[in-house]
């Protein structure tokens, strides 16, 4: 059953900017990676899902509820990390989290404390004085603390150091195991490869690839067959390069990383 459903969503800003006929679905319990360069339309798509923007044409639903009309009902079960984190500057982290808990009417101190420990966040600081990374951690805690079933994460690891990025990936994997549905936009191929079953790639507002990570890779598998001088050499070659040998011939296949596939879609050609 698909939880997040986008059907033919179009938002034209003119001059070829915007998103055009975007359609994809995210299944229950699935982690979906949403990839694309800056300005490709990731955030615009997400803003529609969050009910910030009204769909001009096409439709998006979460759990069968309209993302614009029923946004407050959807939000009950949803956690969100915005692409650009901006909180009330005059509060401390503790005050903000407490405020949000009460504002959402879902206070949950145990989970909140666990998350703060996990990300080594010291929340007793005015948000004004927090670094980008600290604000990002605060955003993560705020998005996960009410234990939502659906998570929409817009570049969730930006500003985090590699150690914390790793922690975050672990958190996403943990949530995946608990059956959460996650849509994650990202620039980090590693985190997408580690966590996502399926990816959608968007370019200039259009979905250019939509498939499982494995299938995408298979499309870009390139077999090479080389002939070597002796069978022994062929065997050694096969061993060193992970190929299959038969007689003098060795077949080697390269598996491309998601990054290479991404570059294929976005690199060079206009």
């Amino acid at each position: 059953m698909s939880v997040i459903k986008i059907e033919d969503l179009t938002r034209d800003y003119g001059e070829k900017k915007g998103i055009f006929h975007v359609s994809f679905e995210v299944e229950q319990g699935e982690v979906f990676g949403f990839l694309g360069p800056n300005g490709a339309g990731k955030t615009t798509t997400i803003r529609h899902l969050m009910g910030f923007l009204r769909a001009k044409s096409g439709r998006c639903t979460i759990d069968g509820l309209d993302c614009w009309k029923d946004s407050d009902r959807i939000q009950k079960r949803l956690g969100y990390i915005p692409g650009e984190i901006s909180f009330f500057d005059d509060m401390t982290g503790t005050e903000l989290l407490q405020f949000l808990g009460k504002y959402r009417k879902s206070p949950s101190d145990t989970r909140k404390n666990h998350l703060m420990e996990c990300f080594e966040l010291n929340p007793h600081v005015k948000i004004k004085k927090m670094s980008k990374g600290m604000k990002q951690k605060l955003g993560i805690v705020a998005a996960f603390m009410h234990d939502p079933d659906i998570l929409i994460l817009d570049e969730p690891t930006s500003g985090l150091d590699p150690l914390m990025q790793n922690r975050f990936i672990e958190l996403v994997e943990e949530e995946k195991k608990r059956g959460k549905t996650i849509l994650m936009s990202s620039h980090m191929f590693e985190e997408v490869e580690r966590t996502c079953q399926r990816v959608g790639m968007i370019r200039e507002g259009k979905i250019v690839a939509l498939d499982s990570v494995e299938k995408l890779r298979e499309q870009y598998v390139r077999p090479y067959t080389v002939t070597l001088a002796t069978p022994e050499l062929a065997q050694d070659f096969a061993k060193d390069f992970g190929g299959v040998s038969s007689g003098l011939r060795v077949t080697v296949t390269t598996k491309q990383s998601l990054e290479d596939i991404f570059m294929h879609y976005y690199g060079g050609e206009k």
Partner: protein
Amino acid sequence: MMNWTLYKHEMKGSIRLLVIFLAVITLYVSVIIRMYDPELIKTLDGFVEAMPEIMAAVGMSAGAASLMGFMISYLYGFILLVFPMIFYILRGNGLIAKYVDKGSMVSLVAAPVKRRTIAFTQMAVLCSGGLILLIYATGLELVVAQSSFPGELVVGDLLRVNAGLLCLHLFIAAICFLSSCLFSDTKYSIAFGAGIPTLMYILQMLANVGGAAEKAKYFTVFTLFDPQGIVEGTASSIAGAGILLGGAVLLFLAAVLIFQKKDLWI
């Protein structure tokens, strides 16, 4: 309809401005009411005679015979209009447009709280602030007047004039709030939210001077608040207050509706 957590948070955010304006009101109201003195009135009336345009521009006219008349001349033309107006301009902008502009509106919208509820709550915060200023001013006027000139002030008159003033305040607050909901950019929200009330006040000053400039009164809502008329109980002054109140309700409703329907680029 209301989110009390947000209400409390925003009321805390109003405290600093409220304290400043309460202090200013305390200073002016207590000093000016104590100045009521038939002898001094002659001096002030002398000023009015000497430079009628300037005095009239700030709403001060000669012949304030009673204490209420004196207060209307010297408090209700400037102090009790302009200071609350500044409060509405600053707070009105801060409650919606600033959050949208800075992006912190995300925290409020990305929660199981309807946009309508957010807008209503912020509107209630703005009106509560104005109400606090006005109730405090009323209490202070009563205390200062009764202690300095026992029996001089007709309490009913004061309450009616202040009820009329409340209608004007709500209308100004509604303009500021509408502007805040309409524009996602603080630049424009301030330009309209501050610009329109200020321009109307300047027109009112012009109209007070009289002569050809009196026509300006048709372009400002301040004319609809006629304290002297309210004391006398004229039908036009009561109608004026009614129009202000009705207009305020309409503008507030429009503001909530606009916020509910608008695209948020946050």
